[in-house]
């Protein structure tokens, strides 16, 4: 079990007017390959800042961050963009699919920024990713013809398609109803079971029960880091919720 992510004394300061805001005040932890980690915290705890740093969108003011063995802090913008393209899969709260675009084109998008991936391979991998999230029969559906759950599954397929070292989910169930939330959670659990490394940032404590490890932030510091030896099974929870719409039935 090698480390995918290693943070050492990460600090992040923002200068707002004359004041300096310390969003992160020395965060250190490591995540090994195959872990399903939830990062918890109320708003203002620094979890968004942490997510930006983990996602290589932002660089820390101080401290070191290694992603899959690569030191990120000193990298330039373009190098970080390429790093994101190869090592990270993002899943956002509001899906962020391209409008009027088919599922398969949305999923192909990250591979379009990878020149070593040809057209045929791109299509093949996108189809495989959509099959993995249970949308093998909706390849040509456009984003505006899909339900929230389906859109989030397309977004997850897009995060999987580049075979990333880590999947970063930002409140990925935040816009979904309870039933669909558990479907998406179930999908994350099954990806985890398949060996994926997942970091799920949320303010919802309930979700922490389904992950293998939980990190809690407050005021820019880690206040708790607990592993969860017996996570709940989202599929089992789902079975207890009365079925709502047949359209969002769990993938088979």
């Amino acid at each position, binding site marked *: 079990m090698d480390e995918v992510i290693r943070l050492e004394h990460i600090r992040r300061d923002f200068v707002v007017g004359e004041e300096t805001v310390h969003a992160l005040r020395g965060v250190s932890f490591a995540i090994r390959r195959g872990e399903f980690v939830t990062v918890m915290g109320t708003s203002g705890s620094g979890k968004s800042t942490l997510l*930006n740093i983990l*996602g290589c*969108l*932002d660089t820390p003011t101080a401290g070191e961050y290694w992603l899959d063995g690569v030191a990120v802090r000193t990298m330039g*913008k*373009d190098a970080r*963009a*390429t790093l*994101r*393209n*190869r090592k990270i899969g*993002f899943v*956002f709260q509001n899906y*962020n699919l*391209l*409008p*009027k*675009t088919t599922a398969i084109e949305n999923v192909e*998008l*990250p591979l*379009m*920024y*990878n*020149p070593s991936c040809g057209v045929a391979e791109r299509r093949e991998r996108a189809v495989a990713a959509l099959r993995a999230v249970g949308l093998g029969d909706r390849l040509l559906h456009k984003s505006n013809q899909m339900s929230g759950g389906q859109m989030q599954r397309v977004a997850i397929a*897009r995060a999987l398609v*580049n075979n990333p070292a880590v999947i970063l989910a930002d409140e990925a169930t935040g816009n979904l109803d309870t039933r669909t939330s558990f479907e998406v959670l179930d999908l994350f659990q099954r990806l985890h079971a398949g060996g994926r490394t997942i970091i799920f940032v949320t303010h919802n404590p309930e979700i922490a029960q389904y992950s293998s490890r939980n990190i809690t932030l407050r005021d820019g510091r880690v206040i708790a880091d607990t592993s969860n030896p017996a996570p709940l099974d989202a599929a089992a929870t789902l079975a207890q919720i009365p079925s709502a719409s047949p359209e969002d039935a769990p993938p088979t």
Partner: protein
Amino acid sequence: MHIGNLLKIAFKALGNNKLRAFLTMLGIIIGVASVITMLAIGQGSKRSIQAEISEMGSNMIMVHPGGDMRGGVRLEADDMESLTLADLEAIRTETRYVSYVSPSVNSAGQAVYGARNTPTTVYGVSADYLDIRRYRVADGDFFTEQDIRAAAKVCVVGRTVVDELFPDGGSPVGRIVRFGTIPLRIVGVLESKGYNSMGMDQDDLILAPYTTVQKRVLAITHLQEITCSALSEGYTDRAIGEITALLRRNHKLREGQDDDFTIHSQQELSNMLTSTSDMMSVLLAAVAGISLLVGGIGIMNIMYVSVTERTREIGLRMSIGARGRDILAQFLIESVLISVAGGLLGVLAGVGASLAVRALASYPIYIQPWSVLLSFAVCTFTGVFFGWYPAQKAARLDPIEAIRYE
């Protein structure tokens, strides 16, 4: 990112907003079409003027007696008797850049045949005059050297004079017209040349041997004009230089003394007329160019709107690995696509409009290949230039803020 992918993305983005893309293109279409049409009209009129002037003899040089001023008094040129047959002979034998030379003496008057008469001008010339003015004899022959030496009472008439005096349509060759009191036997009829660009009827004339006009009509020995032609239009200036030097020597003018003759060339007239039409072309093209500029500003405006509208998309693309230059290229290609497509349609519209003007208004049109290429190149440049700032703005967005943009 691969250029094929960029084009695919750009086509898709434009396809999502077809009407807007078309309206943006419209500015470029109108700009390019008007540049091409205006230049086609300008060039067409310039070429038709040039063609008319060259019909009149574009390499023609006219020497008149008299300088502009003499002793502070402006003199009537006809009163001057400074041009002589000796001058003519000198020009004929001692110049290198003059190909033809003819004396010219003329008299306006009434031509009479039977009960009909018409006002016209008789020009006393030599055979070279035909080559200088590009006249051709359509019927009969031109008078001979023998006729000139003998001051024979013969003439060659223009089409207008024929139509006035001989309405029955029969050949006038061999008949005798009276010019003033002098009877002249018609030996030939000139081919019709029509009106020139200044509205002068070039067929309203009678040509006679200059000796005949000098002795029998005007009773003078000097020449009113010497008409020459340079070897070609390009030699006009050199020919004028030669003639000036020759005449100054023959007239024994000292250094610093004014010329007692004046030289005009058809080229001066040609330059004057074409420079007017050139200026018109430039003005029209400038107006058209402004509309191209306005079209470019339209592109810039729409690209700014597009960038703002698609901030989230830009944020997403960046977070999944698009570099700044990928985003820059994406939006730049989109604006270039708009301008190039607009340019192509504009070229078609411009050529179509030019042909329509020619067909409907029977205006002379000449579409220059370079004007098509130029306006096409300009509008491609417009796309890059006006697309650059919006694309730059897109490329500089912070992905963290862009992805959460509402």
